[in-house]
């Protein structure tokens, strides 16, 4: 009998990373390489009247909007963001030009001697002001990048007939990714072709952005991912901007150009998690059953749209959480402000929505004297129920078993009761969150937007090469994908080769985002592997790198086919918002210092349904890391702005969790195979992040007996809330 697929194997990339052998972008050197630094806007909103550039020393260049041969717009959803500012700047840190030269000292000198004359315009910094729109609009006529509405059933009638309606407003703040490796790229121009090497999640996004920026044939553009030191969504869309910068500079100078950020620069100008204001109103009938829910989500998109419309959609599709609500109205809008653009980050709108709905359900239950967990479970979705968008949950929802298990692990119910009645000196609390994550792209996005392709090649020596655009960024895909192919072909994993993607070699299997890599790309690889094992097609010789060149024998290409059951109407957001869902239950136990209101986490338990696990150890790493990042978001990752300036632009002031912060976590995974995932696997990477903040906030609510409505739950906020209660 074969051993189970989930049995952990050693990560393929561990030894080279541990020993410092792995080459990250900052470790690469090219003959004649120049250094680039970016001149950034110092104003949140202004017209650039003039730019005074001193006489440049020999070998030094300035690269700006005039050096962009194609369209000066970064290819994204609304195409509103320029690579380099034209006549207007919209946020502090917006790139205006690059100074490029052989000597870093000289580049710094030139940069500090450039004078920009600005004519300031009235900026907009808050969601509330953006909605008001009483200053010149930043985007369109009303500052609104996107707005949508979902209506299911007859919510208006349900509210008219309700016995009571309970409301809450929830707010969340910025979060910075803090991938340990700052953003960086190197552009190289040779033989009429430009190549960008860099730390990234989406080689083909960058390629597409460069095609538009240069206006060249795509054959002239090549993107190569280098070992990537963490990303978490931060290297999804943002990297296209700096890839453009380095590429334009390489073409202008004819030399390789290196553009790598320091941490402060990275924090100031890269994307962040969207701040949100979410209002939830719930209608109850006279038996105190939920009859309807109305949710209004407003996000701060920052100065440019980026991926904001899709982040908003994901937040809306999570608006009513794991609950079965008969009548629903969800309104969502994302607004432009003169803050740094918000963008993709692990969870992608889900964390904001789940914080709001979970806190709302807890407060709602407590306000009608019901046990929150009982109340949640009575209203929980199960197989056959409808999602927010009216999609049918086709697969078993194992939440009841998962809650049972987490209860056994954590003693949640007993502790909740004990703590709610406890008036001891040190307030203690326990919180439980229930959540999901829709796997892969929204709706028919996998079919219509991406249509992923993967390729396998078999060499004469029997080794099999994986050719996909999915990157290894720490999450373990280089090991997981090899394992899938090896298992499908009955090969030892050592015989399956995966190298960092190079767009000259790999087909477009889509971006490494949305918890889609294993489920979508992995499934295609498994199908390809099965076909290859059965014969495959004849292949030409090929060369990837020295290590894996060789005469090829066979190859197989596989393209995404949408499972027949997916029905999606994008205009009205009707049907299956995602192919399937991963589920989670998270419990956090805390105590709150009665003097300082500092939160101490005393216990963390999580149970997750991610289908079948491909590698237990990698998944444990994803779950624990996701929880830690989520608890940082929940408790102390404070990022404030003052007139568009980020007040915490360093790791001294923006504090992420360290080794002493949290106790050991207890994680369990339950098996619930998905028929269109490899060996039954679903998405995993984002899920654990989502439940952490509501679990912690609920625990604090249990401890202090005051409703928690803000993230992060700082001691400053708790003091204010506690004083307010007196």
């Amino acid at each position, binding site marked *: 009998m074969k051993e189970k697929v989930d049995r952990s194997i050693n990560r393929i990339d561990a030894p080279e990373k541990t020993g410092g052998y792995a080459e990250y972008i900052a470790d690469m050197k090219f003959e004649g390489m120049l250094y680039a630094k970016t001149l950034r806007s110092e104003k949140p909103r202004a017209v650039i009247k003039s730019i005074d550039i001193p006489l440049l020393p020999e070998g030094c260049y300035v690269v700006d909007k005039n050096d962009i041969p194609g369209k000066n717009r970064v290819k994204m959803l609304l195409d509103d963001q320029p690579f380099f500012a034209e006549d207007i700047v919209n946020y502090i840190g917006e790139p205006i030009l690059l100074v490029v030269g052989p000597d870093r000292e000289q580049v*710094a000198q030139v940069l500090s001697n450039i004078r920009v004359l600005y004519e300031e315009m009235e900026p907009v910094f808050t969601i509330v002001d953006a909605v008001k729109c009483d200053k010149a609009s930043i985007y369109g006529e009303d500052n609104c990048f996107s707005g949508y509405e979902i209506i299911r059933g007859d919510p208006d009638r349900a509210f008219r007939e309700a016995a009571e309606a309970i409301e809450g407003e929830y707010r969340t703040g910025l979060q910075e990714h803090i991938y340990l490796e700052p953003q960086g790229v190197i552009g190289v121009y040779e033989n009429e072709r430009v190549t960008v090497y860099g730390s990234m999640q989406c080689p083909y996004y960058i390629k597409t952005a460069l095609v538009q920026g240069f206006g060249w044939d795509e054959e002239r553009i090549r993107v190569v991912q280098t070992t990537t030191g963490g990303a978490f969504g931060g290297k999804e869309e943002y990297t296209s901007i700096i890839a453009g910068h380095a590429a334009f500079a390489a073409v202008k100078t004819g030399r390789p150009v290196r553009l790598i950020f320091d941490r402060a620069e990275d924090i100031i100008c890269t994307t962040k998690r969207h701040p949100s204001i979410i209002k939830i109103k719930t209608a109850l009938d006279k038996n105190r059953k939920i009859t309807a829910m109305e949710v209004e989500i407003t996000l701060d998109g920052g100065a440019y749209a980026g991926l904001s419309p899709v982040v908003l959609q994901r937040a809306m599709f999570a608006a009513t959480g794991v609950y079965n609500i008969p009548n629903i109205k969800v309104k969502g809008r994302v607004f432009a402000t003169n803050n740094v653009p918000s963008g993709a980050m692990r969870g992608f709108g889900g964390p904001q929505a789940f914080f709001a709905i979970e806190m709302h359900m807890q407060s709602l239950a407590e306000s009608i004297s019901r046990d929150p967990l009982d109340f949640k479970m009575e209203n929980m979705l199960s197989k056959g129920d409808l999602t927010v968008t009216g999609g049918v949950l086709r697969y078993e929802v194992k939440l009841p078993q998962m809650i049972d298990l987490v209860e056994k692990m954590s003693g949640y119910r007993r502790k909740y009761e004990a703590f709610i009645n406890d008036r001891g000196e040190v307030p203690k609390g326990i919180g439980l969150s229930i959540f999901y994550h829709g796997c892969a792209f929204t709706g028919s996005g996998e079919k219509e937007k991406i249509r992923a392709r993967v390729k396998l090649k078999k060499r004469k020596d029997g080794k099999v090469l994986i050719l996909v655009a999915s990157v290894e960024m720490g999450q373990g895909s280089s090991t997981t994908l090899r394992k899938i192919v090896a298992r499908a072909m009955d090969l030892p994993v050592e015989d399956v080769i995966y190298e960092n993607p190079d767009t000259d070699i790999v087909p477009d299997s889509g971006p490494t985002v949305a918890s889609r890599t294993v489920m979508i790309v992995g499934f295609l690889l498994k199908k390809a592997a099965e076909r290859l094992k059965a014969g495959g097609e004849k292949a030409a010789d090929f060369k990837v790198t020295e290590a894996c060149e060789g005469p090829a024998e066979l190859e197989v290409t596989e393209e995404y086919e949408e499972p027949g059951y997916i029905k999606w109407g994008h205009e009205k957001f009707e049907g299956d918002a995602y192919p399937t869902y991963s589920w989670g239950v998270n419990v956090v136990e805390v105590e709150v210092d009665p003097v*300082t*209101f500092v939160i101490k986490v005393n216990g963390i338990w999580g149970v997750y349904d991610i289908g079948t696990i491909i590698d237990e150890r990698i998944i444990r790493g994803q779950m624990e890391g996701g929880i830690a990042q989520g608890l940082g978001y929940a408790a102390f990752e404070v990022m404030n702005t003052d007139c568009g300036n980020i007040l915490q632009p360093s790791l*001294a002031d923006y504090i992420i969790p*360290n080794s*002493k912060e949290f106790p050991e976590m207890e994680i369990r995974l339950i098996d619930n195979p998905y028929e269109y995932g490899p060996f039954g696997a679903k998405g995993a990477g984002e899920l654990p992040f989502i439940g952490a903040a509501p679990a912690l906030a609920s625990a604090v609510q249990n401890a202090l007996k005051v409703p928690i409505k803000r993230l992060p739950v*700082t*001691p*400053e906020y708790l*003091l204010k809330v506690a004083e307010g209660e007196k």
Partner: protein
Amino acid sequence: MVRTYRPQSFQEALEIKKGAPVITIAGGTDLMVKRRRSTGLSPYFEVPAMFIAHLGEIKGVRFDGGNIRIGAACSFAVLLQNEATPPILKTAVSRIASPAVRNMGTIGGNICNASPAGDTLPVLYARDASVVLKSIDQERILKISEFITAPGETVLREDELLKEIVIPEKPFDVNFYRKVGTGMTNTISKITFTGIAEILNGMVKDIRITFGAVAPTVVRSRVNEERLIGHSGKEIEKMIPEISSLYSALINPIDDQRSNAFYRRSVSLRLLGHFLRALPGC
């Protein structure tokens, strides 16, 4: 590139100091951050720099006739290991930054940096520490509260170096130190509170209370402390509102990127109340 000096002795360091203005680098953990530029560039120094952390003469900790004498270039890690270091100072030092910074940073640097959030300062103020300032011509001894005058400012003259810190040896029965910051490590203090007391026959014989990071310099008031001396814990408990309002008048916190004035003030006073309530006999 500025000139740099690496003297071979403390005496030579003083001679260099006498000659021209120099910036003294001990552990460098603050200077190298404040003056940093981007990758590949040396930090910005407008005048010559002088390294002193290698000078053995100013690195030790020792008992000396009723005092504890700590060399200015003594690293936090050495302070933590040395038996002569007062336990409350060890408590404060153990919460400074991280193991790496504690191996690099020095107590002298923490003092001369004169940050309102310097973590050793509230303990040194509470323990009546003095600083020994040396120039080639003379030696001065000042109380630490006289030495530090404002954020980042001291009365150190251009030709002087901080040689050592002198702490009177005196046992205290109650030693309470709290650092409030975001996270457990590598965090800059929002508030530090130090409360130490000597108790005799149920009465407070001596008491010292200091607050860090809530005013331009460390807050300490001997007048307020003297109000508490001679009282029992029970009596003190009743005095808490009065004492709190006296300290509230002295602390003057700000809103910044780490916290806000409201929190700093309230929690400082809550820590004060917590400390006073926990005195024996309360």
